[in-house]
């Protein structure tokens, strides 16, 4: 079993852990963490694609690595945008929740007692 395969399994495991947490955790900041864990898992799977693409004198395929580098930066930018939205929501509403706002959807509120 080559080392890169192990990292691939770690990537698969991270996607699983992150996906579970993304669904189960109600807090938005926790969901953001979970989403980042999924992203890292995908990057790692990409990492073994890069490692397996090794040729003589070249221990890795540079194309997937370059894409992962841009991916890490974009993931950070998206996280920062999400954090800004959360902080604004907290400032405006006093709490951060993804639940439907009952006051703006009267019919939903009427249906569920």
């Amino acid at each position, binding site marked *: 079993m080559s080392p890169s395969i192990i990292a691939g399994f770690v990537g698969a*495991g991270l996607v699983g852990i992150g996906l579970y947490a993304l*669904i189960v955790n109600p807090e938005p900041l926790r969901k953001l963490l979970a989403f980042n864990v999924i992203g890292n898992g995908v990057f790692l799977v990409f990492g073994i694609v890069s490692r397996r693409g090794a040729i003589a004198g070249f221990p890795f395929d*540079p194309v997937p690595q370059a894409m992962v580098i841009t991916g890490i930066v974009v993931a950070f930018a998206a996280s920062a945008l999400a954090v800004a939205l959360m902080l604004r929501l907290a400032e405006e509403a006093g709490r951060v929740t993804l639940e439907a706002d009952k006051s703006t959807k009267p019919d939903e509120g009427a249906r569920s007692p």
Partner: protein
Amino acid sequence: MTLFEALDLGLAAIVLGVAAWTVAVREVFSAVIGYVAYGLLLAIVWVRLYAPDVALTEAAIGGGVTGVLLLTASARLSRLPAPDAAPSAGLKIAAAALAFLVAGALAAAVVYLPDPAPSLAAAADENLAATGLGNAVTAVLIAYRSFDTMLEKVVLVLAVVGVWSVAPDRVWGGAPAALGPATPDAALVFLARMLAPIGLVIGVQIFWVGADEPGGAFQGGAILAAMWMIVMMARLTEPPRIGSGWLRLGLIAGPAIFLLIGLAGPFMAGSFLAFPAGFAKPLILFIEAFMVLSIAVTLPLLVAGSPSREAGE
């Protein structure tokens, strides 16, 4: 079992364990601390995958800058009322089953990856001489897939615009809240004064050697960004007003120069974003220098967040 395999298995177990703890722990603040540790561990995994360029990016952005962003956010959100009710047991089981299926499918995909593996390494290596670079990853970023990288810089600018737009109208053009406490610890001020100049040199060096060795614009820029942030956390300087012209110029300098040189391509080398033969390396380094500047400006602004003080303040 060889030495490396034992090490890899141990590392894998630690990474998965820390990730699982991070998503499972009750306190958000603890979860974020776990996430920082996890970022450090991932950097080491990337070194094991022969990807020092990625490892450097992950260490600087995944562990460092993201850590600051999330720690600050969780400290600010921690005083909010309790979150929504926990999901039902049924949802938990369904989610676990789904997660297990997806992870299993991905693991199977990893096992059954095509053999021999498809690779662009040979093509990248063949044309490396034409770019004058020694680091194939930098060549992919700035030469072979330059369109990608340029648009990615535009995405960063859009993210900054998005973060700014979240603020109410009356503070538009004002400055984000200070990153540090009102009276920072003397030790922190000392650290910022000592570390920032050294970090500046190391950041520029990592950008410069990135042409031939692991390193490059993203890594160097992220280190410079971290230095600016530590100076702001020590309150030696404040986040700038988002209305200031030099700031906006710094933000768009990277993509703008990239685009200008790309537009000059058809006249100089025959196609958009093409570099004339013999001038590729200086042009690539020229573009990269402005990208370093833009990244060093963008990342701290994303962490500082929306403006909260009016322009006059």
